């Protein structure tokens, strides 16, 4: 019985973890660290999902996608919105950061939470050529979580996943 339950929780995690982010489909919700946990309680799979930004318009889409994935895997499903501890970019896994780079989005400079990363000048490497000779074009990019940059070396315009 215990074995079976463990298997179920694992299967539920795998189903939920594979859901891609609707705005950045190269990474999954697990890569981004916005899927906090999945528990199986009395046969119902409960997934804890946390928003990136307060007003992230993708929150509802993500929750619905995770719920649908769990149902597809044969579970009754429920979503719990988790607010604490708050999400920061440090929740993005190393694998997720690598996927972002390959996709053409510069991953956030590490160690958020320090006021320096928010106010200080950060060095952002171009995801295309790796040069750190880049400039910020706009504080706000294509989505709430990204800023817009340009590489001065290879001229590639790119998104930078902001560090919060």
């Amino acid at each position, binding site marked *: 019985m215990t074995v079976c339950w463990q298997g179920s929780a694992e299967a539920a995690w795998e189903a939920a973890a594979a859901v891609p982010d609707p705005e950045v489909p190269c990474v999954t919700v697990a890569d981004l660290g916005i899927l906090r946990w999945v528990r199986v309680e009395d046969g119902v799979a409960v997934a804890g999902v946390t*928003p990136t*930004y*307060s*007003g*992230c*318009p993708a929150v509802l889409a993500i929750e619905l996608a995770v719920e649908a994935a769990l149902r597809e895997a044969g579970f009754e499903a429920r979503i719990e919105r988790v*607010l*604490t*501890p*708050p*999400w*920061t970019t440090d929740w993005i896994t190393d694998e997720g950061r690598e996927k972002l780079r390959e996709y053409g989005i510069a991953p956030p400079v590490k160690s*958020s939470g320090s*006021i320096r990363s*928010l*106010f200080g000048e950060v060095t952002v490497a171009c995801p295309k050529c790796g040069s750190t000779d880049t400039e910020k*074009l*706009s*504080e*706000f*990019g*294509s989505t*709430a979580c990204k800023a*817009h940059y340009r590489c001065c070396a290879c001229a590639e315009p790119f998104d930078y996943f902001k560090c*919060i």
Partner: protein
Amino acid sequence: MAVFDALLELADDHLILGHRLSEWCGHAPMLEEDLAMPNMGLDLIGTARTLYDHAGKLEGKGRSEDDLAYLRGEREYRNCLLVERPNEDFAHTMLRQFYFAAFMRPYWLAALNSTDEVVRGVAGKAEKEMAYHIRHAGEWVIRLGDGTEESAARIRDAVEALHIYVDELFDSSDAAQEAEAAGLLPVRADLRATWDRTVAEVFAEALLEQPTAAYAQRGGRQGIHNETLGHLLAEMQVVHRAHPGARW
């Protein structure tokens, strides 16, 4: 119910300012700002949603975030007057944003120690977002103040126009005082020194003089608003009121 009322005041501040920012969508002076202002508006509206939802649950009368946002009239809205001020020009909008964020950042930092778990959760996200808003709006205040003759005149006009609404930020209504005494929300008056410091730093760089307001305009917390709020609510609420419970 004091806690409900206090949370509502806070949520109203965020929804109304978020809506004001959304009015710039498609009208901003440049594409970057056309993205920036609705993005900042989204942060504020997201915060408002969580606060309304929480307030509605604490009230226990089954009112949802939509009920609270769309089905209250002007006199029932308890936002401070600063946030409902019309956008006017870009200088007014940026200064209003800077003033509000300079208040909310220390507010949310203090709220990280709230006795209420949802408030702590909101604070954890919002304090970072407000730091971003201070930086973005603050840079514009500096750029405009230390810019051309025209831009400097406009930001000076904005300072002149908005200054009378600043003191109300630091007032606590009876409901807020109860919530503050219970450790649920930070004491507003305690944040004045931090706000003054933030504004002084940016104004020094912006070559702006610190104004002294001849008087302070108040009333939002009692539901006494400027005539512009009614127009804002009419636009924001019309679809919901015309088609109650509509879904798509």
